[in-house]
């Protein structure tokens, strides 16, 4: 157990406090992991907003131009539908722009959107490197690796999350599936896939950005045009991850949230690994 005793000594000597019986805490996240985790919030937001502005210039999903409006962009159609059906939006000045005005920097901003996208993309790659450095330095990468039992365990967790609100309403006892690893199988699947999606976003991004110098990379994703489709849907992986991620962290409570800021968790029992 050499690994677990070293930080203990460090922490006590660093706090220069007398050895009093206190709260047992576990070190969950390395400093670099915490920093890069939070920096992802503005970076991903900037990448998505500028990315949808870039998408506007040449949408992937197009249809034959509408005889009345001349519109050929499926995203613009969604904006038109929203303006026609959502009360209060009937008089919106430019319905085809609704999506771009609300989910991007706005239409007709290609030059600025590209500059911002490069700025945030370089920041994203640097931040990713910091995250990986933190995972290695803190040994946290081991906790993210998939296990053989994960498929079944992930299903048990999924059933728990689905049934939880109903059980709460019915005031029924709904036990949390037991596990003795840092993350449960569903968390592990998510926290393993998201960095993977990050790597794929960077790879498809370079394939689109430099399709001639990196033509063999573009070929892996099926060529330039297909790499754009990959890049577009990888954005949705982040969006679809963030929503339950934020909900579950708030549902799980203060200790989990604090863990990503301070790095310590006072819920030691649950985060224990039994050898």
């Amino acid at each position, binding site marked *: 157990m050499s690994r677990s005793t070293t930080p203990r000594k460090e922490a006590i000597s660093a706090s220069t406090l007398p050895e009093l019986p206190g709260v*047992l805490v576990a070190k969950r996240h390395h400093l670099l992991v915490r920093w890069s985790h939070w920096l992802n919030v503005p970076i991903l937001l900037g990448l998505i907003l500028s990315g949808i502005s870039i998408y506007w210039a040449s949408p*992937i999903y197009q249809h034959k131009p509408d005889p009345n409006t001349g519109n050929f962009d499926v995203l613009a159609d969604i904006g038109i539908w929203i303006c026609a059906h959502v009360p209060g939006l009937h008089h919106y000045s430019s319905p085809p722009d609704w999506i771009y005005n609300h989910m991007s920097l706005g239409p007709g901003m*290609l030059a*600025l959107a*590209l500059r911002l996208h490069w700025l945030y993309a370089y920041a994203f790659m640097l931040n990713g490197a910091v995250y990986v450095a933190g995972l290695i330095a803190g040994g946290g990468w081991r906790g993210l690796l998939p296990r053989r039992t994960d498929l079944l365990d992930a299903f048990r967790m999924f059933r728990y999350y689905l049934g939880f609100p109903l059980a709460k309403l019915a005031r029924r006892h709904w036990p949390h599936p037991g596990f003795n690893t840092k993350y449960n199988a569903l968390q592990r699947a998510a926290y393993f896939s998201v960095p993977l999606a990050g790597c794929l976003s960077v790879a498809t991004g370079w394939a689109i950005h430099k*399709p001639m*110098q990196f033509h063999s990379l573009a070929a892996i994703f099926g060529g*330039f045009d297909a790499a754009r489709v990959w890049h577009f849907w990888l954005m949705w992986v982040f969006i679809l991850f963030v929503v339950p991620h934020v909900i579950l962290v708030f549902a799980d409570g203060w200790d989990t949230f604090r863990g990503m800021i301070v790095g310590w968790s006072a819920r030691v029992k649950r985060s224990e690994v039994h*050898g």
Partner: protein
Amino acid sequence: MNNKARGFFGERPLPKFEVDPQVLRRRSRRDVLLFGAGAVAALAGAGSLLPQNTLTGLGLRRNVNSPGKEWLLNSALRIDDDVAETLYSPRRTVPTYTKSQITPLKNNYNGATPAPRYIPGWHLTLDGLASGVSAPLDIRSLMTRFSIHEQITRLVCVEGWSAIAWWAGLRFDDLLRAFPPTSQAKWVRVESSVNLDASGNPDPYYVSIDLATARHPQTLLATHLNGQPLTVEHGAPLRLLVPVKLGLKNVKAITKITYSAEDPKDYWAERGYSRYDGI
């Protein structure tokens, strides 16, 4: 159980230690406050990079077009251009395709295509040559003097669309060998007859190309598209075809080529796009 038995990939127990409840509280307060300050700073920093229209849309009237913002965005663009220039290799050629893979090529020129009146009197002027004199060349002498090369390559637009087309023309490199530029030359300024905006008013089009890219074996001065002489829509009688650059550098109906030591003006760089545009 020790680490060896767990294997290299096995999860280790989390490091645990005891802390005074007060220390935990103080440490939490300190870090959460620091985190909050950082979050506000990051939000303000990232928010100030948003375009003015978006900020006005969000109800923020204050003008945040600070010089710092311009500097940051310009640095990102410059770093990206430097990366692109580093990636470029004169030996790395772009993929070529078969005739069955040819796709429609749209005429993305938003302005008014000029009347074909200019074609009979058209000639190409070369300036900034080692000889010190400018050389006017007509299309017939260009096509007879230089060998014509064919290639089926992809044209990638900054907007995100791309098209595969079958081109034929002379190599820019051959022209450079026949009419060598001054020894200091690092850049090429390319001007076009396509110089009217959508309402027919003068809107001169000019781009810069670095000399290294001009020398690339797949950089053509194209005369034909899909086996036919170029139409006015596609830049008759001669257009630049440079597949290692974005479509916007592939100037139609070239009229003048000027070699220079200094980075020449570029139509799109003046409008906030990158200068190098290597892809």
